[in-house]
């Protein structure tokens, strides 16, 4: 589970200058680095953005492996996509697609690994506040997005657990059963999270 927690990365105070930048600047960097690459789809731009993102992550005093490492599942996905493009005759396009995905992850880590979650939520709440006239509750929105992000590594951990449990019983290759097991765990996890929020009165009033 600890490994899964580091999928997107967790904030640890390291006292870097990047850490002290405002959340707005970091979100702007996230979009500024990744969006043009996804739109323009050219390898020089993707390469430059990858270098910039890696440089910023290292400047944030994060360990290289922690900041730049890819989870096996994500790495496999990237390789499959790149190979698919290569097989269809567009190997450069494959590299760009793979590079853009890695870039998106690194740019996201630039935000999540250098900013306390509470600040991220506050930033989302601020952005969502104008929509309160339309009935949106900004505090709940911010918390909901955070809970959604929190659940991703948990589900990834559940999938790894299901695989190990199947392997321990000599049941390799039963993907359907593993997915069912993870789905059941996901429902249980959602129920437990809902209970925790209700018990803490987080749905009862304003934050």
């Amino acid at each position, binding site marked *: *589970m*600890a490994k899964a*927690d580091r999928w997107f990365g*967790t*904030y*640890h*105070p390291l006292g870097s200058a990047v850490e002290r930048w405002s959340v707005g600047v970091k979100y702007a960097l996230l979009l500024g680095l990744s969006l043009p690459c996804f739109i323009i789809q050219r390898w020089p731009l993707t390469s430059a953005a990858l270098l910039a993102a890696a440089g910023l992550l290292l400047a944030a005093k994060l360990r290289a492996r922690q900041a730049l490492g890819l989870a096996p599942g994500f790495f496999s996905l990237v390789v499959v996509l790149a190979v698919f493009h290569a097989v269809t005759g567009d190997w450069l396009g494959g590299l760009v697609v793979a590079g853009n995905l890695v870039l998106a992850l690194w740019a996201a880590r630039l935000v999540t690994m250098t900013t*306390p*979650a*509470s600040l991220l939520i*506050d930033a989302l709440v601020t952005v969502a506040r104008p929509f309160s006239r339309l009935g949106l509750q900004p505090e709940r929105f911010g*918390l909901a997005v*955070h*809970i959604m992000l*929190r659940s991703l590594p948990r589900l990834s951990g559940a999938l790894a657990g299901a695989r190990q449990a199947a392997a321990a019983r000599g049941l390799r290759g039963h993907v359907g059963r593993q997915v069912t097991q993870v789905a059941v765990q996901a429902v249980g*996890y959602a129920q*437990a*999270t809902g*209970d*925790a*929020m*209700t*018990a*803490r*009165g*987080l749905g*009862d*009033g*304003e*934050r």
Partner: protein
Amino acid sequence: MIKLDGVTVAADTPAGPKTILDAITCQLPEQRVALVGGNGSGKSTFLRLVNGLAAPSAGRVEVDGLDLAANAAEVRRRVGFVFTDPMAQLLMPTPVEDVELSLSRVIRKRSERRAEAWRRLAAWGLESVAETSLYDLSGGERQLAALVTVLAVDPAVIAADEPTTLLDLRNARRLREAFAALSQQVVVATHDLAWAADFERVLVIDAGRIAADGAPGETISFYRRLAGDG
């Protein structure tokens, strides 16, 4: 004071309707109350009623004179709930952020909130792990952090559902000591009979009913006989 008056909780299951709690009536004015009983006996549902996580199908639940049905939010503000698994309870990546989340209901200013969160954690000896990822904490530290997040909003009652079940001996002792130091009314469901013996009053829940109710000595002996353990 916690008051249950003819409380029944029923649920629809694939096998048909099931009564989880059956016409429970009791008053709990004591400061320290333990619920013991087998798995599926209904003690967790009893606790969840006190916090409003479960609603009665019939009957009435009151906390400090407030009817749960009409004042669920206010009851939840008065009753803090500690879950068995702190990882389900803690929503933020680190203890200090989670305590801040609890405090966000009562302290608006960020800097004050953070300072108060640190103060609360320090009071329980958790300042050294305040900014540590939850995944890097020991089971005892996680459960203690969960308790601090609950205490942060100064509830009048703490309901805890088997809080020591996932802990090793040392951490379980640490948590029992933490609960012993609380000034709030404490209602705990537990399988730890040695701990239950430290409480003022013990209720034995069996098949959705209160099978025994009284001082720890007699009720725990009754429960042991009921469970075929002496």
